[in-house]
């Protein structure tokens, strides 16, 4: 009977074509609005490194002075250079890394090419293992390179292809700023969404932009590279020159711990509190101990990478879907109640209420299926419109398989919910009354 009812359902689409079209459009527009805005939300709030997001931790230490001090205030999101050095050497967790952004021009070997203006990161060798960065050619530099301030560089795939073409450039030299660096590796496709490893950046934010190169942290400091991005200094101005700046309490470096398990969050947090207490005693820190240690998802939530506007839009879009649902209930009610006579005849001929229920619910879900097809098409159109807003939106306004499936499911579910009341009403038809009036 299922197939027969399905057939009937499709055939009945052609009965009251205007009413049916109205239902399909209403349903699909509602589904498209909510699914395209929800897709953006889903992509924004995704876990960028699901297998270890609960054991990658970001520390925060309150480095301000006592001027304008409020107890329990959120410490700065980045660390100072002296703290970074001590945390790197702490031995806490299984790996540690620090990163800051650099703006620099790369001069290619070929004289006929203009220098490239690039944004990259200065970090330590553990960075690549911690964030599971794929390599197309070569390897990360080694811990010894960090210790020896080696002038080595890892390029993004796009930068490497711009400079050297589609060949393995490992071992070749290039000029970054005014110093020469040896290429040790080229990254594979690596576009974590959001760019969680360096959310605070001056080139694109959480969802757009990329790092064109990575060089050792120690080499960047030796070449006196200043960071591109935020640099917060408390009341006392740092002493003049680069040495004065890095010795100051200005915060400009992002730091990560990798724990052996999620439980290490407590261990490292305890160590961090201890560290802050000791630095307070030594006079480096001025404020009472005030630290944070967040895992990846807590960190993303803290930095509010999911835009408030995107959430408002998704909420209102689901409200819109609700109105569309109520509307569809009304329209289905109109459609089904026009067929009370038909129901009466079937019931009189022996069909049970259950049979009638099946038939009409299947008919409702046929409307849902057609709505799903149209809704899917409209969702893609909606996402296309959203992606036109900005580079960041283009990165997140992409439908993945989960969302595709969710869209189809939502359409059918919506039509089933919408069909329930009208179907139930159709079942209540009393055959005797219908037959008499005809």
């Amino acid at each position, binding site marked *: 009977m299922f197939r027969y009812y399905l057939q009937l359902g499709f055939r009945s689409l052609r009965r009251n074509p205007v*009413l049916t079209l*109205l239902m399909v459009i*209403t349903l699909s*527009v*509602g589904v498209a*609005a909510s699914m395209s*805005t929800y897709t953006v939300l889903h992509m924004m709030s995704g876990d960028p490194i699901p297998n270890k997001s609960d054991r990658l931790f970001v520390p925060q230490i309150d480095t301000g002075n006592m*001027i*304008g001090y409020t107890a329990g205030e959120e410490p700065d999101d980045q660390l100072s250079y002296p703290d970074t050095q001590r945390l790197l050497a702490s031995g806490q967790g299984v790996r540690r890394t620090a990163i800051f952004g650099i703006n620099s*021009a790369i*001069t290619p070997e070929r004289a006929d090419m*203009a*220098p490239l*203006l690039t944004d990259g990161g200065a970090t330590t060798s553990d960075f690549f293992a911690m964030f599971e960065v794929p390599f197309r050619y070569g390897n990360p530099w080694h811990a010894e390179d960090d210790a020896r301030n080696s002038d080595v560089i890892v390029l993004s795939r796009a930068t490497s292809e711009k400079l050297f073409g589609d060949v393995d450039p490992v071992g070749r030299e290039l000029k970054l*700023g*005014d110093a020469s660096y040896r290429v040790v590796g080229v990254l594979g496709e690596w576009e974590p969404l959001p760019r969680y490893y360096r959310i605070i950046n*001056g080139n694109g934010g959480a969802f757009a932009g990329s790092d064109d190169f990575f060089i050792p942290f120690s080499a960047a400091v030796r070449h006196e590279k*200043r960071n591109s991005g935020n640099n917060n200094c408390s*009341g*006392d*101005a740092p002493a*003049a*020159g*680069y040495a004065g*700046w890095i010795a100051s309490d200005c915060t400009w470096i992002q730091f990560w711990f990798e724990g052996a398990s999620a439980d290490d969050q407590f261990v490292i947090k305890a160590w961090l509190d201890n560290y802050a207490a000791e630095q307070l005693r030594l006079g480096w820190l001025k404020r009472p101990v005030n630290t944070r240690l967040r895992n990846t998802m807590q960190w993303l939530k803290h930095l509010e990478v999911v*835009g*408030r*506007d995107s*959430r*408002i*839009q998704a*909420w*209102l*879009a689901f*409200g*819109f879907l*609700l*109105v*569309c649902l*109520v*509307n569809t*209930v*009304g*329209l289905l*009610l*109109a459609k089904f*109640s*026009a067929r009370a006579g038909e129901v009466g005849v079937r019931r009189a001929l022996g069909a049970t209420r259950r049979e009638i229920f099946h038939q009409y619910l299947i008919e409702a879900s046929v409307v849902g299926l057609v709505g799903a097809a149209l809704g899917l098409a409209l969702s893609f159109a909606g996402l296309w419109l*959203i992606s036109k*807003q*900005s580079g960041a*939106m283009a990165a997140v306004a992409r439908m993945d398989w989960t969302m595709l499936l969710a869209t189809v499911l939502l359409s059918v579910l919506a039509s089933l919910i919408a069909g329930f*009341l009208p179907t139930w*009403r159709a079942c209540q038809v009393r055959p005797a009354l219908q037959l008499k009036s*005809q």
Partner: protein
Amino acid sequence: MEIRPIVSALLRNKTGALLIAAQIALTLAIVSNAAYIIRDRVAVSSRPSGIDDESRIFNITVGSIDKPDDAIAQQKREEQLLAALPGVESVASSNQVPLGQSGWNMSLFLDKAQTESSAHMAFYFTPGPLVKTLGLKLIEGRDLIEADVDEIDMGNDNRLGHVAVISQALARKLFPGGESATGEHVFVGNAADAPEYEIVGVVERLQSPWSQHGDDGEYSLITAIRPIESYANYIVRTAPGQVDRVMRDAEAALTRPGSDRQVIDKQTMTETREQRYRADSAMVWMLVTVTVLLLLVTASGIVGMATLWVNQRRKQIGVRRALGARRFDILRYFLTENLLISSAGIALGCVLALALNQLLVSRMELARLPLGYLGGGSLALWLLGVVAVYGPAWRAAVISPAIATRSA
């Protein structure tokens, strides 16, 4: 009037009426909140920046890989080069652009002994006629002049200028008593060696690069510095309608063969404004679309339901007509019925709108909905209901009394 029979008819067939009322309630809740957000975003993104005729302004940032030995001479050469281009009215280099979204944010102190800063403000510095180039309105004191300019090797020199022109909003914040700011002294930071500035003039308005929503979006200070840097950002005012051409010419002139300069960034002020408020305009368009669709869907729901009712009651209408009811009575019946349902929906909708607003206030830090938006939304939905029901009601009114005599 005939309200009682309408109500008792409605009570006998509640489902459809309840659905329509629910739909109107939800629509009102969403539309009134959406309208408020739209109004708010439009107001925010149309605030004036203080710049006179933004369509004539652009900025271009050029840089060299190595810091040139003659950075200052190079900047002066480039300023002259730009000023000599046809269509250029004024040129000034500046560390940042209003609405540019990145720049210097500093704490200002009236007295170094203070522990809390007097204001956080946007810190502009320029060696040239920035006030004139942006077309800012000087309302007090004087503009910065050549003799005010300090040449500073940024990063290796802790000096940071010594005279300042500030915005009126900042002057009011610093001197709430209304006394003149000109001649007063302020400090950036409160450290022992914090730079001190003499305020020499006040401009009517200058937004910060971030153009924050509150008064602080207009807290700005301009000082006279020529920075010794490997890059420079030039702001250019052009003759009307020539901004795109002059920007192309400027790029060609600055990067002509033999120069080691590269263009890091270039943007017309119109583009800068668009970029600053891109999220807001996207939000506005999204909400306008949802609002229009919502009204269409609700109208179609009302039309659909009214058509159904008319069809179900053809015979009764015929009987009424046969018993002497005029067409106008039938029309009035359906219009009144619709008004009753709409009113119930609107009453519920007002409650829902306030609840939704409460949710947005508590979870999204939105402002509270002014009641005027509820009134406006209610009126719009009443009208929508009347317009939507008029068609089906008219078709009911033209039903012939003869139908009463037929049997099915």
